[in-house]
Structures are given as C-alpha cells and as structure tokens.
C-alpha cells in the first residue's frame, strides 16, 4: 500500500503543486489543511504516514502545529516546507519535532528525497 500524506499549506496553489509531486511518485494524499489548527485536527483524524507543513499559516502557524502533532503522536513524521530565509524558523521547527525540511520553490527530486528519508 502506498504511503498516506496530509498536505498543509494556506495556499491552494502550493497544496496542488506539492500534491502533484507526491502523487506522481505514488503517494496517496489523504487530506489537506489550510491552517495550523486544521492540520492538527486532520492529523488526529486521519493518522497519515507523513505530513508536509508550511510554516506561515493563519490560525496557529506551522511550528505550533508540529509541536501539537508530535505531542499527540511522538512518532509523527513531519516535513517542514519553508521559504528562503526562514532558517531560524526551520531550526525551531526541527526542535519542535519536525523530521526534515524542504525549501520553496519545490524541486520535485528534493521533495521526494526528503520524504523518502523521513519515511525511512
């Protein structure tokens, strides 16, 4: 069975593009979230194998969401999606429990590398 993924980003555009990259590589997108709060709720509901998490989102940012998700499930596998120049935030996200990060704009190979690595 293919791995299930929850894609979290406040832009439909980004969710679509990231979803395409992952789906073409054989992943199943089981859910999407456009706010940090929804990401946490969806994680609890869907229990996906993997979460991609944007950092800047309304109603609870991505870092806070990672913190809540890993508190709920210490084995949760979250990959942060950050923009250039957000290194400090990426460090904070890793400390909060994220397993890896990719930098926007997405390069499909870079995204897949990261995801495979996190899924082990």
């Amino acid at each position, binding site marked *: 069975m293919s791995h299930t993924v929850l894609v979290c980003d406040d*832009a439909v*555009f980004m969710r679509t593009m990231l979803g395409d990259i992952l789906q073409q590589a054989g992943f199943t997108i089981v859910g999407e979230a456009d706010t940090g709060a929804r990401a946490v709720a969806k994680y609890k509901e869907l229990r996906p194998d993997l979460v991609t998490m944007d950092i800047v989102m309304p109603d609870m940012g991505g870092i806070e969401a990672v913190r809540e998700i890993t508190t709920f499930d210490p084995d949760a596998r979250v990959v942060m999606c950050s923009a250039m120049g957000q290194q400090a935030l990426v460090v904070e996200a890793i400390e909060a429990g994220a397993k890896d990060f990719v930098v*926007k704009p997405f390069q499909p190979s870079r995204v897949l590398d990261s995801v495979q690595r996190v899924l082990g």
Partner: protein
Amino acid sequence: MDLSRYVELFLSEGREHVAQLNAALLELDRVPDSSTSNAAVAEAFRAVHSIKGMAAAMGYTAVSDTAHGLESLLDELRRGDKRVTRTLVEHLLEEADALARGVEAAVQLPTAGTAKDAPAVVQRPAELDEATPARNTHVRVRASRLDSLMNLVGELEIARGRLGKVLGQNADDGVKAAFAHTSRLLTELKEEVITARMVPVGQAFERFPRLVRETARTLGKDVEFVLEGSDIELDRSMLDRIGDPVMHLLRNALDHGIESAEKRTAAGKDERGRLTLSAQRELGYVLIRVTDDGGGIDRTIVLARAHTLGLITADTEHLSDGDLLRVLSTPGFSTAASVTSVSGRGVGMDVVDAAMRVLGGTLDLSTTRGEGTAITLRLPLTVAIVRALIASVAGETFAIPFTHVHETLELEPPASVFDDGQWDEANINDDIVPVILLRRHFGVPARFAARMKSVTVTARGLRAALVVDDFLGQQDVVVKRFDSPKGSTVSFAGATVLSDGSPALIIDVNSLI
C-alpha cells in the same frame, strides 16, 4: 515539471491574496495604533508570503522579488522595528499595487516547459477531491459550467410542467406519486444549483475601500467608509454586474453627497463624513444600499432643471423621492454638464438604472436635505429564475416579475370610459395611481367591463396599475434575455417558456412606468 497547468490557479489565488493584502493594509490605515493592527500586519504578511512562494514556484522572479521586499517591510512592522505611519501605509499600498500588476503581467509570460499554445486548464482540484476523503474540501468550477447547469435545471423545470399537464388528464395514482416525488427532487436540485452559484457580496466589495479612500483623498475630503453585511450571498453572475453601478453610487456620494470639512463644520456636523455600503437579505431579495451623511439632494435645483428640460409637468411644485429618482435617471438629465455642480447626484444614475433593469432589480432613493442620501438596489437572488405573475392580454401570455408586483385587484373604470375610452388614473386606497391599459399599450384596441383585472406594480419608486385581460397564475420562470428591437415602444426583459410549453414575454416594468 510542466508549470503551465498551474498558471490559472496562480492567477486566481494570487488575486485573492492581493485582495487580502489590500484589505489588511486598509485596516492598518484605519486603526494605525491598536491591538488589531498586529493582526492586520500578520494578515498582510501571510498574503505577501503566499504570493512570494507561489511566484517563486512558477519562476516569476520579478513578482517574488517585489513580494520579498514587501515581506521584509511587513516583517519589520511585525517585530516592532518600524512604526505604522500614514506615509508607510501609503508606501505599502503602492507596493501592493505593484505586486498586483506583477501578478497580472507574470501570467502573460511563457512558463518553463510550456508549449506555445494557451495555458492549460487546471484539472487538479477535481482529481484531488477524489483522492481526498476529507470533508469540506473545495473544488474550483468554471462559472460557465454553473451557468449551463442552471440553464439545464430551467429546461427541466419546463419539461416537468409539461409532464404535469399531460399527467393531469391521465391520472394514475402510481404515476402521480412518482411525478410528485420527481418534482420535489427537482425543486431541491434547483435550490442546490442556485446555492452553488452564490458567493458572498464581500468578494465584489473588496476593491471599494481602496477606491473610496483614493477618491476621497483626490477630493480632499475626510471620509470614514463602513462595510456591512459582506457575508450576504448573491448569485455570482449578478455580483459581477453590480460592481460598476455600486462604484458609481459611491463616487457620487463622495463627490456630490458628502460636503467639504468646512461646510460640515458650519452645519454643526462631524468634520469627517461617513459613507456606508451595506448588504442585507430580505425575503427573496438582497438589498445593497449606499448611504452617506452628506448634504442630501437639493430638490429645488433638480426641480428647476427638470422644468427646463420638460421632464415634469409645469405645475409640479414638489418632487417626491420617487419623482426625484425618475428625473435623475433620465439619460439627458444626468449628462447635462451643469448638473455635476449640483449638490445632488444624478451623474450616471441612468447607468445604474439601466443595470438594475438588466438584472431584474429595482432602485430606491431617499434623501433628506442636510442629513444625507440613501440609495438602495433591490436585487433578486438570481438572474436566471424569477417568480412571476402570469397574465393574458389580447390572447397572448405575459410574465410580470414579482420584484415589481404589489397586489392584484379588480378596478372599476369610470362610467365615461365606455364613451370616450379615456382612463388615466384610478383611486386605490385613497391613492391616485396611473392606469396603464396593457391592451392599448401593445397596440390592440382596449375593451372595457364594469370590473377589470389589474395589478399594481412599483418601479423606481413609482406606482401604476396594469390592466390585463386575465390572470393565469404564478410560476418560477427561466429568463432568456434578449434586447428589445430598436425603436420598439414596449420593452421586454426577456422571454420564457411556461410549464405548458408555450412561450411568454417578460414585461419590463421599469420601462413601462
């Protein structure tokens, strides 16, 4: 990676984020120093950040650079390194404009991996939906799809009516029950389709705060702009077409309605003018209202001008709100150069009036000298289907939209009518109301009886009684629009097919009165 398929999505979402950015910046301008300003900065930051990410992904470097600059500025505000000032907000708004232009221009560029042909339609959302069992997901649908869906529902409605007629004569209980069930489902389907076409009016209102702000500044006036009821929903196609009329009304209110600060102070008013744009649901209608607390319309000046132009009878001494609206909506009146200096409006009111006619809506005005003016657009929820009164006149069937219908009644013509055929007005509940004999209006000789079926209608604040041959009932009719032939004296708002399959013309009450 073929990026061309994301172009449309980039544009539509980019526009949304630009609108959010503008709204947040204006909020910042309104309350430069309070706790809400932090929220506004955060909101603006997120919008810019999203655009930056999307533009970078598409390879639109110019856009992502502009966004990056704006983002840095907002970040400084967020951290408290910079303070919100008028000048800064001004600068941010200019940058937001540049960003908006950038977004629009970028999609004209060829994208990486694009073939020479036009950008492909984004197919993703539908597929994505299948793969997403999660509830409350959204799918972007082309507006034209919804239009054809609505059209089909309308056709189904007509087919249902015909079927009902046929079945009525060959009654079989099982068939009747099945027909009743189908009818109920069809009604539900129609409601669902109408609902799917609804969008919050706020989407059309978004650009107004900006416009009002700039117009007020150009005019050197200090005006507080209030938006109310942005979440009220209206048919998408309707919404697309009320933008310009509303803009007209706002400009008029700013230019001619709200007085200069000196005049306001002299009149004992708050120096700052107040302009409100509100939306409100009322039964099957949505009311869009533009209210200002300005000087009101000067009836004396309008009256004098209306006399000069021969728009009213010479003995008219007072203009009611309805008269005023009618005079101001006269095309010749509104374009007369001298009127622009009148403290009333009247500039382009004919444009607003015409738009209302197309949409099957009505216009209402109320003004008080020294206190202000309110103009209300009363719109049906959807343009595609209207509830109408069906009447017959000289063997033909006509539909009168319920937006205009006041009441049906039987009128007694004066005895003299049998001699000279003159019948111009009737006394209805102590009101003198003009009478329109539809037969005569359609060029057919009138016929008189002791009691005659009539319907009182209102449009542009005026009332009239339409005399028909008979009433055939009421029905939801699907409007097929067409333009009346040039030079024809009677205007119709469109045509429809009734449930018995026969065609009927929809009477344009606005043009009749």
